[in-house]
């Protein structure tokens, strides 16, 4: 599985690795009831790429993403983000690292109900005490089509709009990597397409490195590379692929 370097590069973007994982294992529980969610995964995420992680449920794809994002710790193995080894960091250091390097988009949006759309977007900056760049914010609001809804609260927005707020929130701090966990899992196909367009657009326009966990083959079509997990191992890897190819591979690895 060392096909990483063979991948085609989007033009004009330096192919430097920003996330590197080495021999990751993750075991839940102990003794006879122990369950191995990851059984030795190594991978490198190059800058400016959108990588999709796919696999049947229970394949370990969510666990992998959580460990890469520093939300969970591996049982063994290492993760480096921007050349910083994160598996040994303490909670506080990890939190600071997340502020600087990581953006999240969740399946269930996870917006604060008492804040307006704009306040939700700028939340990570105000938590870390960083300055809000007005221009950047306006650009994000325009890109996500939320400019005229900035004063609305989440309850006054549709599901698609809420997820667009979430995407903008993930982009606002210009993170080194954006992690999206089933970003379309809670949306209909029409709005799913919108969100996927946004994520792909961020890669194209800003060179936003992105890792997306999904079980939706259609979502994976926007990825530069698709990793397939089964039983805690990376079993297959595709470059930019069509929905048919992905479905086929899924059927293959699911067997």
């Amino acid at each position, binding site marked *: 599985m060392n096909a990483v370097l063979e991948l085609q590069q989007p033009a004009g973007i330096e192919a430097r690795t920003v996330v590197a994982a080495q021999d990751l294992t993750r075991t839940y529980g102990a003794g006879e009831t122990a369950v191995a969610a990851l059984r030795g995964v190594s991978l490198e995420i190059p800058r400016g790429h959108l990588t999709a992680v796919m696999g049947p449920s229970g394949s370990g794809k969510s666990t992998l993403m959580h460990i890469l994002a520093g939300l969970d710790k591996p049982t063994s193995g290492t993760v480096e983000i921007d050349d910083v080894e994160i598996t040994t960091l303490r909670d506080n250091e990890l*939190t600071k690292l997340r502020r600087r390097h990581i953006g999240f988009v969740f399946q269930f949006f996870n917006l*604060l109900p008492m804040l307006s759309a704009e306040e939700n977007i700028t939340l990570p900056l105000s938590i*870390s005490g960083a300055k809000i760049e007005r221009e950047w914010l306006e650009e994000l609001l325009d890109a996500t089509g939320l400019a005229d809804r900035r004063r609305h609260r989440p309850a006054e927005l549709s599901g698609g709009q809420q997820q667009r707020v979430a995407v903008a*929130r993930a982009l606002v701090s210009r993170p080194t990597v954006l992690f999206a966990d089933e970003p379309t899992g809670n949306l209909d196909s029409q709005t799913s397409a919108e969100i996927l367009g946004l994520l792909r657009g961020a890669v194209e326009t800003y060179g936003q490195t992105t890792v997306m966990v999904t079980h939706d083959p259609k979502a994976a079509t926007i990825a530069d590379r698709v990793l397939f997990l089964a039983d805690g191992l990376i079993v297959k890897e595709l470059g930019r692929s069509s929905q048919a190819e992905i479905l086929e591979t899924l059927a293959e690895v699911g067997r």
Partner: protein
Amino acid sequence: MRRVAIRGLLSRKLRSALTAFAIILGVAMVSGTLVLTDTIEKAFDSIFSSSYAQTDAVVSGKKLVEWSQTGKATVSPDLLRRVQALPEVEAAAGTILDMSGDSNQAKILDRDGEAIQGNNPTFGLGVDPGDETFNPFRLVEGDWASGPNEVVIDLGTADAEGFRVGEQVQVAGEGPVRSFTLAGIVRFGDVDSLGGATIALFDVATARQVLDKTGFDAVAVAARDNVSAERLIDAIGVALPDSVEVKTGSEQAAEDGEGVGEFVTFIRYFLLAFGGIALFVGAFVIFNTLSITVAQRTKELATLRTLGASRRQVLRSVVLEGAILGVVASAVGLGFGVLIAKGLTALMRAVGLELPQASMVFATRTAVAAMLTGTIVTLVASVWPAVRATRISPISAVREGGMVVKKPSRKTLVIGLVLSALSVAGLVNGTLGNDVSALVRVLGIAGGVLGLFIGIALIAPRLIRPLARLVGLPGARLGGTAGRLAQQNAIRDPGRTASTAAALMIGLTLVSFVAVFGKALLASDESNLRKQLGTSHVITSQSGWDTVPVGAGEAAAGAAGVELASSIRGDRAQLTGGGEVDVSGVDPATIGRAYNFEWIEGSEAALASLASGGAVVREGLELPGGGKAGVGDRIGFLTPAGKRVETVVHGVYEKHGDLDQLLGQVVLSQAAFDRSFPRPADLLTLVQADSTAGLEHALVAYPDAKLQTGEAFIASWTKWLTDVMSLFYVLLALSVIVSLFGMVNTLVLAVFERTRELGMLRAVGMTRRQVRRMIRHEAVVTSLIGAALGLPLGVALGALVTQSLSQYGVSFSLPVVPLVAFVVVAIVAGIAAAVLPARRASRLNVLEALQYE
């Protein structure tokens, strides 16, 4: 459904425990009060009944006047001889053992020559060495006192001071201090402690001399073998003088205990009132917690409904949850009552109210009262949440999305406004209204305050937004994003924040009221005393309210450097056809210069008439036939000695305030006072002196006499007010603590509810410290809202009440320092309440929190 309720309680252990605590504290206060007062009562009972254990009949002076300073009429030695001569009588002895009043006071001095004294009684008593029958004391060491130079003291005092039999002990009775040989050490009956009282026991003749008594307090009589108590009493009853009566020993014990019984009853209701307040606050907390729980269980309850549970079953399951909580909490509270009883004892000792104690009394009544109040309060508080639970429709089980935050309803607002308006009307009518009966006043004030609390709690949801914006401002500035988020969290569910804050508001309202009212009373009392006092110094007893031997004032008058010394005798008397009044005996020649009289009728010349048997009276003295006493009116009164005094009013002096007075309503000459009252004794000596060296020297023989400057005297005489205020603060702290539990509860529930949000915040870069800060700020915002509601309300109530007392010279002023202190207390309370929830929130596992549903 029953199982659902019980399982529910068990699965929410922390919450149930915190909720229960809100009730536990109130119930503990109720049961603790009952235990304490029963114990005190039993101790007094046993003191008084051991006094007459072997006594079939008691011949004693009638108690003609309550709380007399100089005692009651005594029994003459002549009467003792007549009783002893009766054929029905086996034995009779004169005793000086009355412990029910202030008349038998003798101070024991410690090794430094200071009188041993808390604020406790210092008894000087007399019992003859050979008298085994009537003696309530038991000898622990040495022998009984015999002859004019021996004394016996109680075990407690001997232990505390390290006195040993055979050494010299100084005692001051109604005369200069004297030295006695310590003959023995005794204990009193079965009583563990006389509550810090000291006892100096002499033989009867010496006791009479030390206490300046002419006869005996009582003659104790034992009947011959086959003589019934009735026959004995009939036999003695023949030819008793008017001022003396005969009773059985137990009747006498009951009468001695009467005054104390009334006092203990007063303490009981006083403390129960605070238990009631704590329970009222507890009801708020229960109501709030159950409401939140019901809201959070919407899905669960709806699922039950889809499975076929009826509304009635849902109602029952929530009420049952309340009932179980109430019963368990009451039982625990009942147990805690014992601790509270100990705490209250310490508290009362701290404000100088030490009371005797026997072994702890735990009456069935205590258990019943505590269980009932706790359970009923909890049930009542759970009714509305239960009704709300029945309104959850089955469809909510499948409806997507979390809880819907309801806008505060208009109906609640209207009810709140109407209730508040009615309460304010009742309050204004109760305090300021003219021609209002006492009942209407009390109902208006008590009902008004209660109604106002509920009314404001109902309006409060509307006030939460602006208040949170105001009180959250500093936090939002200082606390960064965490502070701002906290502020917004506080207004997310205004109803919830409102009732959490309202619980705290109650306690803060009451303490603010006490601060305002107390400050007004204190200021007016001080200024009134200042107006009355015309000298540089004042001599009182150490305690301030005991009498001082007459010799002390006389010694002061003769001391070097003293320009003027005017003693004021004092006692109470029964006005003919009227109530009891304070009577003062003054020196007509000097009082005019020592006390600032302002004459309403008559003039300074009226003082001269005192010498010839006249009187001056304080303005407002009611005459038996109605109307106020004026110059020329005749008044009569009965003294505790049983003497009738008739006199004519020669002057009416203006009263300053209604609290502390230097002179009684009726002022006589000292000569007239000494003739008619049991014993001359001074309450005060007003002294004008340039230097105090000579005075101090002159008073060395009177260790209980305390010389103070006028200002120090005023401060110490008004200290009771500050003491009472402190007592109120401490007791009200209980209800503040109860509301604190409510706050912890609300926060824990909020953290639980916002688990996923907290996970997200942590994921996007919020540190644990920031999470803790956010929860802490929310708590402080809530408690400051409580303060923002409570303080103005308390100040307004205080202003209303002081206004209603303005005719008595009480005027309103803002007690800035205490109010600032209360705000600080509120902030600290909020921080304390946040500790546990903040820790929980910060320790959430980010991953699990994110996946939490």
